[in-house]
């Protein structure tokens, strides 16, 4: 594969292939930062890949009190799925199970979007007819009495169909420790970019997959071309000096957010250099068959 060299790191002239998704965002607030984060991490648990989970979700950023609607510490959570219907269902289930139950929490829509999902409207009945609706500045909220006071939830949450899922970087290094060092730096940079999340554990995927399997009924299987332990046995994409590959998958509210996040991640990896970090960076694609969004690494460095 043709490559560019940046500060001694080999950048594949390849592209990440991404596809359209539906995205939603909520701001969760609580009396303390700890409980806002608790609600957000619980809500985004087991939300890595839409292939096996109901949605892909992650924390976009933490918000200080002056940036949240009710002046309390907050967390912005983004949630992605294939259709407005599936996103709506996942959002209502997750807020109902993880945020309504979390002490002190309140939920607000993060943006207006083209469509709306009824969130508070479907959760209000938990109030058993004690719930109270309030309209403030053209937005409607539900006050649901709970044991530590009131659960305040916005009646509707905005949703956008312009989201993109599947932006990615393949980070290749000599061993686990050096590859992880580069990956962690890249994840941090991705987290710092607005409107984008990395939904996998800690932002990292180690099981990059290919389409199809030798077993019947398995839709996806391990990406053997990038498995270092199979380097001699399979049609490997890895060079002799690569002993570990980690991937970062990025979902964004817009295509620009995904490309900005990939650019930031790539920059962090290059800044770290090949001695302590990664030796090579690539991107995953399916020859253009997966989706209309292509992010070429050569355009991002």
């Amino acid at each position, binding site marked *: 594969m043709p490559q560019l060299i940046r500060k001694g790191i080999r950048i594949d002239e390849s592209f990440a292939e991404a596809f359209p998704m539906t995205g939603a965002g909520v701001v969760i607030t609580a009396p303390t930062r700890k409980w806002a984060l608790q609600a957000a991490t619980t809500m985004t648990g087991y939300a890595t890949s839409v292939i096996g989970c109901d949605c892909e979700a992650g924390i976009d950023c933490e918000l200080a009190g002056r940036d949240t*609607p*009710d002046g309390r510490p907050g967390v912005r959570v983004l949630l992605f799925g294939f259709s407005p219907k599936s996103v709506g269902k996942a959002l209502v289930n997750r807020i109902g199970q993880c945020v309504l139950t979390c002490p002190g929490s309140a939920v607000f829509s993060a943006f207006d979007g083209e469509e709306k999902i009824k969130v508070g409207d479907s959760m209000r009945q938990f109030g058993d*007819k004690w719930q*109270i609706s*309030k309209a*403030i500045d053209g937005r409607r909220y539900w*006050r649901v009495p709970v044991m530590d006071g*009131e659960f305040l939830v916005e009646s509707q949450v905005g949703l956008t169909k312009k989201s993109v899922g599947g932006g990615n970087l393949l980070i290749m290094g000599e061993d686990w420790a050096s590859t992880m060092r580069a990956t962690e730096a890249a994840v941090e940079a991705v987290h710092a970019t607005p409107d984008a999340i990395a939904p996998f554990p800690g932002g990292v995927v180690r099981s990059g997959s290919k389409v199809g399997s030798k077993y019947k009924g398995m839709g996806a299987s391990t990406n053997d071309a990038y498995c270092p332990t199979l380097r001699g046995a399979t049609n490997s994409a890895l060079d002799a000096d690569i002993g570990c590959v980690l991937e970062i998958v990025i979902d964004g509210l817009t295509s620009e957010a995904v490309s900005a996040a990939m650019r930031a991640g790539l920059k962090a990896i290059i800044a770290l250099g090949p001695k302590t970090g990664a030796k090579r960076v690539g991107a995953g694609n399916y020859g253009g068959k997966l989706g209309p969004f292509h992010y070429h690494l050569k355009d991002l460095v």
Partner: protein
Amino acid sequence: MKPLLFTLKAEPDQRLDLSGLTPDRLVRRTVKEIEEISIGTTRNAVKVGDLFKVKLGEATSVRFDGGSDRFDLLGAKLLPGFEIHVEGDVGAQLGRAAKGGTITVAGDAGAYAASQSAGAHIDIYGHAGDFLGAPLAGEMAGMSGGRVIVRGSVGARCGDRLRRGIIIVEGDAGDDLGSRAIAGTIIVLGEAGERIGYLNKRASIVLSGEYDLGPTYVDCGAHNLGFAKLFAKSLAQESRGASRLLSGRLQRYAGDTAVFGKGEILIPA
């Protein structure tokens, strides 16, 4: 941007119906056409030109230089995006059934101000009469949206049958504040009269001091309510007093239990 200007020549000798003089109804009219509009309410016909000097200006806003307590129905059925300013007093039914827009009155307003208003932002810098935001006789619901701020005091039955929206009274309120209120929010910074929240179904009434609320309101304890903080933030620019009142811990009295009992009276704890 200069507003379309109506300068009052003399005190009118009869009550006027000014519902025709909202900016949305005056768009693209000439001075002559405007002067021909009939605004009288008796057999002695009165036209705009008889009482006002008209000066054309920006079509989205109207200004009255000089007011009178005989200016009835000012800003009635006003549409969103338009504004009216009155440098003086107005009569009954200010902003009646207004769908949106902004109305500011530098003086006092008569009875039934903001009656059935559905979305307008109405500021009254003086006092307002009885039945602020209330329905007319025979109507089922009062104000159904928007926001009214009265910097002075209001008369009796403020917020009668209030259905949605927010009423802020920075001065005192008369008797039967929030009577028969269906929902919505009423905030009074001064003192309120007798029978507060009489037959209140689901509205929130926020008061600044202790009152004997009678046996149909039940004490639910002191709380930090999230929605109150949202209101406090949203009202910070428009009414600092209301914002401060809502920022603190509030004692919640549920009622009126003579009806649904799903409303509340909130008082600083």
